[in-house]
């Protein structure tokens, strides 16, 4: 009999430290597509130029068995240094940034600006008929702001995907 804990999917935010080398992103993405795992978001950037280390943050979901598989499969890639399940290992901070273009005039434009202020989004570009807002926060907060902009002239969205780090003094390197 399957354990119910194994069949209920959960979300997982996984941090992966990898060698900053050609093809590493293709390896990680290929692993997810080849084995049919879910990717909700994926971000990557070098974090230590001297040691040639990049950090990938993946938001995924699956049953406990699938999440364990994902971590084991990532960990056995040759250029992978470390895999950390931030969701499992304790509290963590997760942030995403979005650039949001809203086009409109008159009352809609004012309302968009008021809401941006309430969400602490900043205006990074403005014309007579448009704004580009920059907003950082949890993915939910971004979703909520974008939903509010829709009737006010939402024209375009660009999101970074989630980056995350564990709370407290412990480091992924230790």
């Amino acid at each position, binding site marked *: 009999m399957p*354990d119910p804990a*194994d069949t209920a999917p959960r979300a997982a935010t996984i941090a992966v430290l*990898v*060698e900053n080398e*050609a*093809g590493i992103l*293709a*390896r990680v993405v*290929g692993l997810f597509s*080849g084995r049919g795992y879910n990717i909700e978001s994926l971000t990557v950037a070098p974090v230590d130029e001297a040691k040639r280390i990049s950090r990938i943050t993946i938001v995924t979901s699956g049953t406990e*068995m699938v999440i*364990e*598989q994902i971590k*084991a*499969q990532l*960990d*056995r*890639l*040759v*250029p*992978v*240094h470390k895999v950390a399940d931030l969701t499992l290992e304790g509290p963590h901070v997760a942030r995403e940034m979005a650039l949001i273009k809203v086009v409109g005039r008159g009352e809609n434009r004012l309302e968009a600006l008021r809401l941006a202020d309430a969400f602490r989004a900043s205006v990074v570009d403005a014309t007579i008929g448009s704004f580009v807002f920059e907003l950082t926060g949890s993915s939910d907060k971004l979703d909520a702001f974008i939903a509010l902009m829709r009737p006010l002239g939402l024209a375009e969205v660009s999101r970074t995907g989630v980056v995350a780090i564990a709370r407290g003094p412990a480091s992924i390197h230790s």
Partner: protein
Amino acid sequence: MSATAPATAADARTMTGAEIVLRALKEQGVEVIFGYPGGAVLPLYDALFQQNAIRHVLVRHEQAAVHAAEGYARSTGKVGVVLVTSGPGATNAVTGLVDALMDSVPVVCLTGQVPTHLIGNDAFQEADTTGITRPATKHNYLVKDIRRLAATVHEAFYVAKSGRPGPVVIDLPKDILIGKGPYTDPPAEPHRSYRPQTEPDAEAIRRAVALLKRAERPVVYAGGGVVNSGPEASRLLTEFVRMTGMPCTTTLMALGAFPASDPQFLGMLGMHGLYEANLAMHGCDVMLNVGARFDDRVTGSLAHFSPGSRKIHADIDPSSINKNVKVDVAIVGDAARVLAALIEAWKADETPQDKAALTRWWRRIDEWRARDCLRYRQEGRIIKPQHAVKRLYEITRELGRDTIITTEVGQHQMWAAQFFGFERPNRWLTSGGLGTMGYGLPAAVGAQIAHPDALVIDIAGEASILMNIQEMGTLAQYRLPVKVFILNNEYMGMVRQWQELLHGGRYSESYSAALPDFVKLAESFHAVGLRAEAADDLDRVIREMLAVDRPVIADICVDKEENCFPMIPSGAPHNQMILGRDQEGGAAGVTDEGKVLV
């Protein structure tokens, strides 16, 4: 990098890329390469021509080069090495690479590539080899800087043979092979990121032994990881099984890891495994899996797999644990280290074993054994394929020669697994995970190159053998006395069997029409051709085949519609096996859900 080395030493260590590759191969202990030349690797072939330390074996197709390297690797425990050109050379090698990946065979495959300045330009014989082989290998490299070349070759060998072994590709642009750069020694320090765990956790071992000591119906289920770990692991497995009195079954990949003649051996398990092995797996209360991966050919229906047992799984690859089957005790480590630790902990744990329960368990197993699930009737002139393999086994055993068996894929492969007994590891070479028809003949090339004095036999089917028949030319060129023993039933037998059992007997495209005359085919490849058409010819043909010190094709004309039993139909649990035709009916119980499975 030896940037600070004295100028003279640095000069001595400056050489062409091709020379760097060969020097690194030599340093890694390579004695033989299986390959096929082409434009992009001409510099390497030129360097090979000017040295004698490394032998090159010219195959007739790049897929065969990889299978030959696999045969070499699996029969020796060393890394097999392949050299192919860019483009089609590399793409032809892909099937072999995936085969090596699925069966965890250490292979380093050097592929040529167009010069770095042409990469991405759709140049002649250009292919995105690292892109294509990324999911086909354990790891791959594209060398773009000659200063990294030697280090990359050294690292490739480390990756291929460490942890769970596998194939590694090094893509070598032609300008890197021609250019000059420094040779560097293998690094003294450990790898930056890849350091697989080989030593098992003591607490996990203790928990495993506690379960095993209290088991009433234990079973040991050993897999290819035991073979990959080296002969010591097989010795320790045998020691552990004998000291505990437990029954032992092995996967297809692990035949020979435990002596077939041992009374505690239940035979192979799985889809075409033995009745007693599968029922022992189904009915056990504690299962010890060492180096196997709960493959679907072994488990059958996962929902019904060994429902009442506590499971212990030891594997060097953590991703194999809890992948298909959730286990109670997970042990990450090399099979030999795990078995040594289990033996020690077994001795240290003073809990007495329930010998009475174990005796009762053996009594039940003996009842299952009494079904004699491999029974067949050899009557009349028509040769039963099982009988052909059985006689081949018995006659080779009389000869007492070191015998290595390779196979192609299909019914003949399963009959070989059922009827040929192996006492030692590394003597059974078969494509288990990928199921590659055409594996056996090139694998036999590699095995015979590694073991010139051994008797190497490819047990084949008439359909599979045609997939890499060109390697008969390699046998002739290198005077490799490989025996090709074809169970010729004029059908893709396993396809036909499934069509009979699952698709209403509609034999869609499974008849081997327009077959060559295998005797003449052998002769045209400078080999000996023999044929057995009737049961009374069989022994004579086998003896003649084994007596000739040349390559032989023996065309054994067998019963055309014999099926391979026992069989667990797709999607069925272990206790719903179909036994032979004269034992029970067909696969009436196969559900539509089962038919979806392969």
